[in-house]
């Protein structure tokens, strides 16, 4: 049925035809660009089927997925038919909005439900799910050659990202240690860097800031020229999510940590050092002088929407948020540019904290080996490349995809500075928090303290001392201090 199309695609795969010629040919055969992209990937899937691995071992089996509504999911679903064809398996899925997604995951896991075999998760969440015994340590499958196809290439995953999904479960133990359990596998991830409005910067002769002091100055200068807008967007709601993006990325750049681990393994709050206090002072001043007037309500959505609408001149947040806001029907689509950001002038490179959307396997799944077939496919190089080239699977977690010229050209054409930003900051990108079971409670309190500082309810020094005291008390009550 698709003989002509397949011949064209095979010619392209064999290097006898350019991508432009291929799509022109497929267009002449009546195929849309998106359909053509899936067919192109079908060719890669056929190649994968030839790698000697028994892809049909679980033919006829159905696995069920719980997925978050996200562009990464769109990429997954767009390519799903190729997985079904490759394995003969069926895949059913439930997609829930992000606002309620983790409630659904928690309810399913805590009740021991076998309804879902695998699900999307953030790495932070596995610090709860893993020790609770709700998810599988995927090392068992990754290291088993009889269950993992030879082209999976686990080492191709960016080291900081891969290790950020692994933890031993011992509070305070570093992520990715030798004895760490691989609770999840990255789908894609986001670094925190600067997204700025090139149009506003050019029109007002603003320079892209390269450290925290310049950031404060540029934000203030931008605010002065923004008619009704503001200088810089950062998150501010009373949530752990306020701490983890730009704020922690800059904080870590000054070699600061959230907790220290003693020789006895006990944890202690470390956010009230002199360096930390100075950083907090600057951060608070930046928000007071140049941040959103309703900063304390700002989450991912407000920060992104405002930079996309031209209401803020820049944001220090997830790079992929800037990527999304630079497209579609946003007023500033095409005007946004990207820059790696090292807050500390003495630092050699940025140290972005990262968020990772990843896949985990439910401990209660009745079809774990079959679920692993799906996981190794969806996190494998073939799907990762498809998602990055044809969909919005940014930032891909594999080095080989970042080396792909077609992907880099696509980014460079529409997202100025994005590739360079990634290349500069990726080596230092990882989760910067200390893994421990009180993560969400303690970081939420940290955000609350920031709110009080910005509202001038608490001086910075006093606020951080009180926060450290409270953190130590809570750690003590949990037997960790």
């Amino acid at each position: 049925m698709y003989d002509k199309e397949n011949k064209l695609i095979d010619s392209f795969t064999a290097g006898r035809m350019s991508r432009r010629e291929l799509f022109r040919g497929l267009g002449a055969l009546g195929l849309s660009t998106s359909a053509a992209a899936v067919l192109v990937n079908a060719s890669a899937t056929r190649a994968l089927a030839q790698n000697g691995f028994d892809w049909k071992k679980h033919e006829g089996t159905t696995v069920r997925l719980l997925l978050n509504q996200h562009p990464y999911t769109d990429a997954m679903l767009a390519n799903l038919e190729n997985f079904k064809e490759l394995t003969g398996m069926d895949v059913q899925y439930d997609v829930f909005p992000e606002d309620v997604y983790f409630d659904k995951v928690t309810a399913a896991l805590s009740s021991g439900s076998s309804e879902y075999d695998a699900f999307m998760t953030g790495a932070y969440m596995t610090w709860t799910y893993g020790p609770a015994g709700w998810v599988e340590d995927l090392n068992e499958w990754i290291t088993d050659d009889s269950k993992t196809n030879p082209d999976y290439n686990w080492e191709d995953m960016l080291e900081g990202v891969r290790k950020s999904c692994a933890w031993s479960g011992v509070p305070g133990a570093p992520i990715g240690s030798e004895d760490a359990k691989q609770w999840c596998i990255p789908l894609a991830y986001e670094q925190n860097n600067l997204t700025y409005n090139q149009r506003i910067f050019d029109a007002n002769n603003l320079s892209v800031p390269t450290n925290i002091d310049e950031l404060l100055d540029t934000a203030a200068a931008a605010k002065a020229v923004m008619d009704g807008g503001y200088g810089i967007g950062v998150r501010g709601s009373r949530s752990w999510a306020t701490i983890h993006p730009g704020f922690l990325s800059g904080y870590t750049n000054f070699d600061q940590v959230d907790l220290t681990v003693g020789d006895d393994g006990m944890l202690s709050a470390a956010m009230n050092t002199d360096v930390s206090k100075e950083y907090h002072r600057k951060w608070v001043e930046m928000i007071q002088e140049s941040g959103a007037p309703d900063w304390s309500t700002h989450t991912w959505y407000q920060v992104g929407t405002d930079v996309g609408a031209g209401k803020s001149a820049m944001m220090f947040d997830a790079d992929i948020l800037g990527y999304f806001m630079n497209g579609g029907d946003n007023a500033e689509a095409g005007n946004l540019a990207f820059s790696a950001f090292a807050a500390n002038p003495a630092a050699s490179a940025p140290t972005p904290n990262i968020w990772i959307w990843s896949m985990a396997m439910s401990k209660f799944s009745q079809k774990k080996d079959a679920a692993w077939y799906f996981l190794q496919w969806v996190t494998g190089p073939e799907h990762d490349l498809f998602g990055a080239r044809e969909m919005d699977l940014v930032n891909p977690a594999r080095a080989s995809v970042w080396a792909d010229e077609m992907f880099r050209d696509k980014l460079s054409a529409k997202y100025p500075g994005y590739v360079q930003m990634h290349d500069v900051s990726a080596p230092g990108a990882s989760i910067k928090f200390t893994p421990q079971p009180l993560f969400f409670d303690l970081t939420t309190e940290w955000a609350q303290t920031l709110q009080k500082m910005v509202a001038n309810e608490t001086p910075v020094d006093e606020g951080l001392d009180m926060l450290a005291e409270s953190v130590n008390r809570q750690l003590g009550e949990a037997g960790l201090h």
Partner: protein
Amino acid sequence: MNTTSPLERVLRGIAITLVILFFMFPIFWIVLMSFQTNATILQVPPSIFFEPTLQNYRGLITGQLVTDTSSLEIKFMGNLFNSLFLSTTSVAVGLVLGVPAAYAFARLKFRGSEDIAFTLLSFRFAPPLLVLLPLTIYFQQLGLANTYGGLIWVYQLIVLPLILWIVRGYFEDIPADIEYAYRIAGHRWWTTFRKIALPLAGPGIAAAALLAFIFAWNNFIFALVLASADKQPVTVGALAFITASGVQYGQIAAGIILSIAPTFALALYAQRYLVEGLSLGAVKG
């Protein structure tokens, strides 16, 4: 004789207008938003003048949500149907169970009646999250998870106590002598309930049904935890417009308009019963 002065009438008119404006402005603004694109909604400063578009409603009805970076299938109309089906059926079941029970609690004195009635009322006190985990486990064991039947059952936690307690108060307000007189005329108990008590309690039952419908419609957590994506009500479905790649304000506004329409129409139609039913049921003779 009308003793209101013209000045007082004018001031009263202004006051009423201000109050209406205050309460209706958010609804008015949402209606305007539902006819705008994201770009016009987010313009700085906001403007009341714009070129109206039906794309938000079209997107919801055709099931294709066009986001900033992609096109996504949205099952909003399916969510709307789920809300209608779950709320209507739950209230119907609640009425069948609750009205006779309310009559029994109002008319018959039996051991433990108050305790049972209070226990039913306590369903309203318990936070849903408290019961959801055990419910999830039981539902899976009983095969009720991810079924409309299971959801309608669990929705009784919302509607049954409301119906029972509102209607009970109303039955208690109907003089028992009317029913006794009818029974002395040779009618059976069931006929008395059907021909005398039910018609007299009609406004109260309508009011209880309407309130129960609104509470059921607004519920969020039960379906989220106990059912899969295809059985989610509009309260969960509406969140699909808040995506990682952008917030679709226009579609949220259109979704709000579509989702409040059924309850709004029902409330308009039944408001006479609602006020009459609630006020009569609340006053003890």
